Each structure stands twice: as C-alpha cells, then as structure tokens.
C-alpha cells in the first residue's frame, strides 16, 4: 500500500502534472500556429474589447439567452464548474500537501465547505448524466467521449468524498482519489476536457465577430 501511495504521490504525480502543463502549452501553441496560418480571415477581426465583453456576459448566470432558456442546466453548469475548479485549489488537505512538498502556503476553505462543494460537483455530474440519458436531443448526439470525460471529471470528487468520510477502506480511497485526479489532469489537453483551454478563445472569437463585424450581442 505504501509503495503504491508513494508511486501515485511521487512519479505519477510528476508525470500527470507534466502531461497537463506541457500538453496544454503544446496544444495551445499548435492551435495558435494553425489559426495564424489558416484562419487569418478570422484572426483579423479579433478584438480584446469585444472578446472580454462576450466572456464576461456569458459568465453571468441567466444573462445569455441560452442560459435563460435552460435554468436547470444553468444552475448545474455554474455550480459544477465553480466547485470543480475552486474546491481542489482551496481544499485543506491539498494545501497541506503543497506545504509539505514545496513549502507553499495559502488560505483554505473550511473542510465542510469543500465537502459540500465536492458533493455539488457530483450532483452536477448527475444532472449532466441524466440529460444524456433522458433528454432526447442530448442523447442523440452523445458519444463515448462525452461519457468518458464525465466519468473522468467526477471520479476524483467521488473518491475524495468517500475518503474524507472514511467510507470503505480509507487508504484505498485516497490512492484512488489521487490516481483519478492525475488521470483527469493528464486528460485535459487531449480530450473534450480541453474546452478548459480552448473555450475562452472560441468565445472570444465569437464575441469579436458579433461585436466588431455584426455589431450585435452574442449572448
């Protein structure tokens, strides 16, 4: 057990972070080069102001038409993403690890807060899964990869909750939690989770087109 623990917190952790960081930089760089080469007619219209205008407006819940027409999805999406990003960063146990390995210290959320946030992530994933199963327009276009990334995204949180509440075998859960977290990190640049990297640019581009060329809102 200790060996496995050392493996997942040592070499595998380095590997996962390396794949995540190097992979992300690589993919962003390749995409940028491709855009410069092939999408000049689109790049020419990119604008900082309209990009930010669009991004900000889409970050306000119920502001965009798409959000207003789908309240359940809006609540689920915002809650899911906010918790998914913030809970791991400000979780006490994670900050302790940062301190232990690198001497980095920063404020944390209270443990019951991150516990609830993790549960919100799982609940959000259940909403997404429910839509994939029962909403016909979503089911029609769902592919294996959509299920895969949903599972990849939810497992670290599910195992984290089980470990925190010491349900099943604690050590096994912690190891699974770390492992699934690493899988998620490594998967970001190379699966549909890459929307984390690219969505800001597609949104910015659409905002630029609608603001600068079409002179209307894109939300």
């Amino acid at each position, binding site marked *: 057990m200790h060996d496995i623990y050392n493996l997942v917190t040592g070499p595998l952790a380095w590997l996962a972070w390396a794949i995540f960081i190097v992979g992300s930089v690589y993919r962003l760089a390749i*995409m940028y080069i491709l855009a410069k080469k092939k999408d000049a007619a689109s790049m020419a219209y990119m604008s900082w102001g309209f990009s930010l205008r669009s991004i900000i407006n889409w970050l306000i819940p119920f502001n965009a038409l798409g959000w207003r027409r789908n309240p359940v999805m809006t609540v689920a999406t915002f809650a899911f993403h906010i918790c998914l990003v913030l809970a791991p960063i400000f979780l006490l146990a994670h900050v302790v690890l940062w301190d232990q390995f690198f001497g980095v210290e920063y404020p944390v959320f209270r443990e019951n807060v991150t516990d609830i946030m993790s549960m919100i992530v799982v609940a959000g994933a259940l909403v997404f899964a429910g839509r994939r199963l029962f909403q016909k327009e979503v089911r029609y276009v769902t592919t294996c990869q959509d299920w895969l990334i949903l599972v990849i995204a939810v497992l670290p949180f599910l195992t984290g909750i089980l470990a925190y509440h010491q349900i099943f075998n604690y050590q096994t859960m912690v190891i699974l939690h770390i492992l699934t977290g690493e899988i998620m990190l490594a998967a970001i640049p190379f699966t549909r989770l890459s929307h984390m990297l690219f969505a800001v640019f*597609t949104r910015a*581009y659409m905002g630029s087109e609608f603001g600068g060329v079409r002179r209307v809102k894109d939300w």
Partner: protein
Amino acid sequence: MGIQDRLIEDVGLREGVKRLTEDKIEKVVQGVLKGETGARLAAYNEICMRCGLCSEACHFYLSHDGDPSYSPVGKVQQTMAQLIKKKGRVSPDDIYGMAQIAYTECNLCRRCVHFCPVGIDTGYIMSTVRRICHKLGVTPQYIQDTAHSHSATFNQMWVKDDEWPDSLQWQEDEAREEFPGLRIPLDKEGADIYYSVIAPEPKFRTQLIYQAAAIFNAAGVDWTMPSEPGWDNSDMCMFTGDFEMMGRLKRRHFESAQKLKVKRIVMGECGHAFRSIYDMGNRWVAWKMYPVPVIHSIEFFWELMKQGKIKLAKKYPGPVTVHDPCNVVRGRGHHEKLRELVRFLIDGEIIETASNREHNICCTAGGGVINCGPPFKNVRLAGSKAKADELRATGVKTIVAPCHNCHGGLEDTVKRYELGMHIKFLGDIIYECMEKPS
C-alpha cells in the same frame, strides 16, 4: 430519426452522388479539411460538449416536435462530425444526406450562437459542409441553376446584358407618368450613391425598382445604377459553397461601383447579399475593409428620414410586427434603426414577436434554403411553424420585413398557416405613404 429517413429526391443531388466514389469523397474532404479549414473547425469539433443547449435555438428543431436530428448539434453530428471522424471515408449515400441537411435544413441564421456557452459557430460548420458538397458536385438543382447563372451572366436570374438596362428604362418610363421628370440615372460618374439590387428585382419584382426610384426622386438623392454586369449584389455561390465564384461576384460588384467613382453603395432590401459583403465574399478576396462604403436600405431610408427628406402624405395603418432578417439584424445590428423607421412610417404600435431583434427566429427561407426550390418546400414550411406561431400570437395584419428571402419565406408561411397577414418591404410602405405629385 435522422437524415436517411427523410431523403428527398432532387435531381442535382442524385446525379451528383452518382458520379462519386469513396476514394473521390475522401480526397475532396481531406482537401477541404487540410487545405481550407484550420483552428476554428478543429476547436469547434473538439470542444463541443454535446450539451444540446443549441437545440432550442433552431426553428427546424422547434417546428419538428423536438426531433433531435434537426438540432444544430444534431446536424453537425450527422455531417461534419462524421467527415472528421471517418477522415472523409463516407459513402456517396452519406453525402446525399449531408448535402440535404446542409443546404436545406439549416438557414445559417446563427441564432444557435446565442445558446452556445462555448461559442461554436454552427453556421460556419454548415457552410464548410456545403463547400465540400460543392466540390463534390452535389448541390440541389435549383440553387445550382442560380449559381450557374452567376457564373455565366454575373447575375442570379439569367438576366441578359440588354435586358437589364431595358428593365430599368421600362420602369423609368412607367414612373414618369406618375412622377414627371423622374430619372433612373445609369452610369452617372461621381454620384452620391450607387444603388444595387438583387437579380430577382428586375426579373419578377420590378415594382421595387420603381418604388426605389420614386423615393430617391422625391428625396432628391444623387444616385445611379450601373448599366453593365456588377449590378447584382446577390450571391448564391456563397450558399452553394462555390467560393471562387463568390469572390468574383463581390469583386465585380465593387469594381462596378469604383468605376463610377460613387461615394457609397446602397443595397436594396436584401439580407444575404449583405452577408456576402460583411462576412464571406470580402474575406475570400482578402479585404478587411470594403473598397467602397456599403450600407443597407434600412440605414439609408433611416438617414433620409432623419434628414427630413422623406415627406409623408399619410401614415401606414398599424399595428404591425417587425421581422428581423438575420443577415441585417443578427448580422449587422440594424434592429433599432429598423424600428425607428417603422415607428416613423406607421400609425399605431409595433407588436413584437416573442423572439425579436438579434434573437429573432429565422424566416426559414434564408441561407439559400428557399433557393433549393420545390422539392424541399414542404420541409421548409414545416420548419417555419415556430415562426408562424410567434407571428400569429402578435395578432397583427402586417409584417414589415426588409429582406427578399424573408418575404418569399414569410409569404409561404402566411399562406400555409393561414395567418391572414400581409408582408411589406420598407420601400412598399414609404412609397405608399409619401407625398406624390397630384
């Protein structure tokens, strides 16, 4: 559920796919994907989360009882997603279905943009599918005929070189009875405005040229029209995916205006021609800015109104509703000017449809869909049920729609759903209400 369950017989599509082999398809698809598309398509393909939020944006989906194969992402799933996944290795029959989806079940209206959190442009994806189909030679017969007309005559309707000035002179002649001294000045160098129309105007809506001439005459506008090819601002080649020809059309249009050294081009009440200038054609010929400033009739009439150049003898009886054409509203933000102008012209209120301004539901004719002709008319009309419901709810008798395609589509919709409404161009109303010599 899916395109293969609802294939419609069209001679253009049928003859086109007969000539295909999987090898040829693969080569052409790869050629377009590698040669013409880049990061935009790659990113869209990768980050579409398949959340389905775009479904509700699409009038085809709304009107077909929520059939998921009509949703924007559903259409992408059946076309571009397959082409990318299979690297272009699909069968001729698959191409038939893809062409039918891309040409006849998507108006490229881009309402789905307002529903997609990650900012995916389905209109662009569908245009790229059309581009592939064009290069494969699989296009609906009717729209291909108009594209051929563009290639042969530089106008959409096979209007011959002598027929064009002849039509203008005929309208001038007719109008001089009502407005003595009225001219349709041809090839006048240095005029303030160059008026360009789409070829269906001289072909079968010639009264619109008459009306425009009457309005410009009454407002004292210094205007001209060209006597030679270049006068047609329409662009069906943009919709078939014949981008080479699209570029030639735009260049010819602007060169014709440059030759006359005019200050501005005013485009008639048409939407798609405007798109071909601000969005597609100009980029194809690598112009970020247009060589001659271009404005749409909505803007020009609005200017005339603001400057007090249009004098009304009466106001048009309201209330009315306004239909926002996607290419000049979602495409150019003219919704408020349009409303200001309508308020100026009518006696009564504007009753808005539930979806309005940049969120307006499409007329279901645009994007070349109506130009694909009779074989696809029933599907198109079934697709406009959502629009018909919104129109009926306004309870008005008049729809103001400053776009030819919207007119064609809405006329069919009004008839099919028995809405009992009239559709008016801005020019119709201005002409009817303006002061005329007694």
